[in-house]
């Protein structure tokens, strides 16, 4: 019987031919020799217990069931991890039918304020020794643009560079967020709205009693 090799393999036409041309030693050759990693030569098991050096006594070779009963093949592990990552990515970020957008409204909307429509406030800013009249455009309570106030006799609708830049003063991170008191001429100290209100009430009642004498803002 011919044992020509086609594409590197021996093709056999009968079991008798196969017995002649094959031997079990060659068939059961394991890629990684003996030892724990020989239990699954090509699958690449996660070695739970630890690496044993190759070339051990073949009779001591262990099977997968001995080493780690719950061991998972590396291929299966990665395919599961990859599938769950892809699934999570698809469903949470992209490839969704319609994303959720929120409308966040006030608990109590300031009067005359319409969300999305700008409100204009007349104001003034002091630059050096002069005062410039301004019209401040406020979007949802946040000042965004400063224009001159045409009705102001001094500036007549014009603004200087510093007046335009003063819109950023409101977003200054150094701006205090709590009332600050330097009562008694001492160091300025942070306070809270409650004490500020109490102090102002005291001031107002005193001023009301004396008719406003001695009060300056």
């Amino acid at each position, binding site marked *: 019987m011919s044992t020509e090799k086609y594409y590197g393999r021996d093709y056999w036409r009968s079991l008798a031919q196969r017995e002649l041309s094959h031997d079990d030693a060659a068939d059961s050759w394991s890629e990684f020799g003996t030892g724990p990693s020989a239990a699954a030569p090509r699958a690449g098991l996660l070695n739970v217990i630890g690496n044993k050096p190759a070339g051990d006594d073949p009779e001591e070779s262990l099977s997968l069931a001995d080493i780690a009963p719950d061991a998972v093949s590396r291929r299966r592990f990665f395919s599961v991890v990859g599938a769950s990552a892809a699934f999570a990515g698809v469903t949470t970020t992209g490839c969704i039918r319609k994303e959720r957008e*929120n*409308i966040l*409204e*006030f608990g*109590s*909307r300031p009067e005359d304020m*319409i969300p*999305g429509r700008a409100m204009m406030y007349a104001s003034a800013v002091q630059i050096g020794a002069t005062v410039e009249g301004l019209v401040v455009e406020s979007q949802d309570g946040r000042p965004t643009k400063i224009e001159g106030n045409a009705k102001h006799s001094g500036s007549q609708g014009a603004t200087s560079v510093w007046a335009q830049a003063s819109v950023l003063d409101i977003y200054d991170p150094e701006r205090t967020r709590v009332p600050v008191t330097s009562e008694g001429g001492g160091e300025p100290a942070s306070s809270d709205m409650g004490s500020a209100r109490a102090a102002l009430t005291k001031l107002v009642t005193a001023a009301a009693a004396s008719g406003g004498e001695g009060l300056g803002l």
Partner: protein
Amino acid sequence: MPAIFPRWTNNVPIAIGLLAPLLGAGLIFSVWYWFSPMYTDVGYRPEQPVPYSHKLHAGELGIDCRYCHNTVEQAAHAAIPPAATCMNCHDLVKTESKRLELVRNSDKTGEAIPWVRVHQLPDYAFFNHSSHVAVGVGCATCHGRVDQMVVVEMKNPLSMGWCLDCHRDPKPALRPLDQVTNMAWDASTMQYDPDRDANRKRKVNPPTHCSGCHR
């Protein structure tokens, strides 16, 4: 040298050459048809953080649309009411209800209720509610019968084609100026002719050119 492939594989390139254009055309068609707003957006009914029922408030109790969505006549955006509007009644009605927990909390602390937006136009399209309300387009014309919805859902695709269908022929969508918020007003039974309405001072002329909405 023996043949690697069986003889029937000779027809594979021809088959690919015939099928690939058909598949491509089919794919393009299915995206154009089934990914359009008519399929992806109509019927969108997200769950809201507070189970507010328009059917109860606008339908059974008869509250007008503009009591809550009060900016619709002055501004482009018809605002969701702040919690203070809800508390106008709910300070006295159902004051202990668990479903109103978020509303009471919002009124007290100012923290926003995270409503989920249902009707949304992309940023490149300009839409102004006040001009539509002023001209006599009813709320129900675009938003459907909201007074029958327990959960607000999207009834119309709000796509450009849908808007243009009306902009090119606005007459069927118009109603008397005082019937804008009347959900039950039925155009087919009312026989309304905007040209003969004495209350209308100006002719309705919606823009159909590009910069009408793409500003």
